[in-house]
């Protein structure tokens, strides 16, 4: 953790207070109606749309001077975009940052949920490219909003039915749609479906920001999140044949790392903090080397 000197030309956390209030109102509404996409007047941010502007706006709106921020992309703290967003908040808010999941009060993420269960008081902020789970079945916003309002979700199951008919199983591997408290169908953002069960009844507050599409949605702590499926084809998460090659962890999501051009590869934890913590405690995988 290290607190930074903040750039004083901009307001704390970049956005002006008026804008933050507007975003906080949208967040409160989203928390009150779990899974419902609340439109908000998304602002241009100094990073491009599609690179986390929704998550950044949500984080900027809820960030306080005593918060400790962690930013991950693909589960890792050291991927380029995670580095860039972390630096941004260090610069415009001067807050402390960390790579330790357990030390963070706010975690902004793209594409992953940390392996260690989050705790009460933590906030997970997701960057969302396409908030509308029905978008690729129905391109029209006016129609999809009506479908949500009237709970017309038959089409969603048509897609899953077609998956099974064609492949023998549901072929959606990420951005796997979920139903919230038996009401709204929600896009969990492009996290692998491996992470879906972590959303269910989480102790942490989960906030979703889509900047380009101008939507915020939320899961308050202890919210029921059910992945859509059929009774005779229940939802399943990915399984990996081997444990992490570095720390030996099982039942975690692994990245495939190509070692050479002769087809050699290893599988390592996608959650870099989880992997490092385990190795610090002495756990080793087959390629983890000696302590």
């Amino acid at each position, binding site marked *: 953790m290290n607190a930074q000197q903040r750039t004083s030309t901009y307001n704390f956390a970049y*956005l002006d207070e008026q804008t933050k209030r507007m975003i906080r109102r949208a967040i409160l509404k989203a928390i009150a109606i779990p899974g419902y996409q609340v439109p908000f007047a998304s602002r241009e941010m100094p990073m491009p749309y599609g690179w986390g502007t929704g998550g950044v706006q949500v984080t900027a709106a809820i960030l306080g001077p005593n918060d400790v921020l962690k930013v991950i992309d693909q589960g890792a703290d050291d991927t*380029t*975009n995670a580095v860039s967003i972390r630096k941004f908040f260090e610069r415009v808010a001067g807050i402390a940052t960390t790579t330790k999941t357990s030390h963070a009060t706010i975690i902004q993420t793209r594409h*992953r949920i940390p392996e260690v269960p989050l705790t009460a008081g933590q906030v997970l902020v997701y960057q969302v490219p396409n908030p509308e789970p029905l978008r690729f079945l129905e391109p*029209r916003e006016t129609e999809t909003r009506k479908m949500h309002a009237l709970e017309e979700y038959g089409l969603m199951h048509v897609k899953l039915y077609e998956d099974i008919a064609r492949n023998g199983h549901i072929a959606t*591997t990420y951005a796997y749609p979920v139903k919230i408290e038996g009401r709204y169908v929600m896009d969990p953002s492009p996290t692998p479906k491996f992470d879906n069960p972590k959303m269910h009844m989480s102790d942490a507050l989960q906030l979703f920001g889509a900047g380009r599409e101008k939507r915020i949605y939320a899961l308050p702590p202890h919210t029921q999140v059910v992945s859509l499926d059929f009774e005779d084809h229940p939802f399943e998460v990915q399984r990996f044949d081997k444990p992490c090659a570095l720390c030996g962890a099982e039942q975690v999501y692994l990245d495939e790392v190509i070692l050479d051009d002769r087809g050699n590869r290893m599988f390592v934890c996608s959650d870099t903090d989880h992997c490092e913590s385990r190795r610090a405690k002495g756990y080793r995988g087959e390629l983890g080397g000696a302590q």
Partner: protein
Amino acid sequence: MYVAVKGGEAAIDNAHRLLADRRRGDRDVPALTLDQIAEQLALGVDRVMSEGSLYDRRLAALAIKQARGDLIEAIFLLRAYRTTLPRFGYSEPVDTGAMLVERRISACYKDLPGGQLLGPTFDYTHRLLDEVLDGDPAVDVGLQRTDAQEPATHIADILGAEGLIEEDAPAAASEPGDINQTPMEFPLSRATRLQALSRGDEGFLLALGYSTQRGYARSHPFAGEIRIGEVDVELFVPELGFAVPVGRVQLTECQMVNQFKGSAKVPPQFTRGYGLVFGQSERKAMAVALCDRALRAEELGEEVVAPPQDQEFVISHCDNVQATGFVEHLKLPHYVDFQAELGLVRNMRAEHEAMSGSEAREAAE
């Protein structure tokens, strides 16, 4: 190796350093000044102000310099700056009828009150590269009118006097929307659409407008009037009880005149397409006017058959800051999702092999 991208704080810093170096280019060549950009690349500056939605020539010039001449990047810089500015209030509607016109033409009439003023246009130039501009030749000063400007009545008002063109929609009872302050919800009002179009991407709107001329949602346009010039911007100050001028901006306004068959309620008359943009951006203003008219299809009871008439299609995709961000986000790592797809493809291939293997056995039996 791709994992080298991880642990990349130093790599990012180095990339930024190299970018700054490339931006400056050969140090023996003098650095561009913002004045040079604002004065000599003025139409680029105008486009950046218009699509960056911020009227400030110096900042737009700075953005162009910083963006190495990439105008969409410059627009993005200006927008990201603009979003941090507090909002003091809304100006009074500008009066383009009282514009100090530098250019004003109509394709509908040979001559009209106020005259046809060609102004600084490329229209009648031969597009021959002028080698002389390789140096810094002396350039004559433009001629100035000596008499006072004759009032240039809007052509719509001339047609309107005869009832031949639809009247300007009465100012909405409520304030027009503000696309910066409120989330867009379809269907949008015309005022809201025009705001979005005004800062929409010139190339995208040009292509859409062009497609309406080629028969997709054809609306038989005439360039009723195009005018470029400066107007006063006034702000109503409650403490004073009246509006005070806060400055002048240069605008380009285009009024298209389009055919309309009429309906049970309305006799046949001309309809309008409207475009208003910052600076001298004639092509853009015309494209906006064509798109505006096409987007009124539903209001005018016309069949919606082509993309330019579809407001969700046009407005959701016309912002180049949004578009470039999302297209370019494909460069971000996606390996977690790719891993999920990789696993699925491997499973499916294994199943496929197992199945074709058993079919081969059956065939052999």
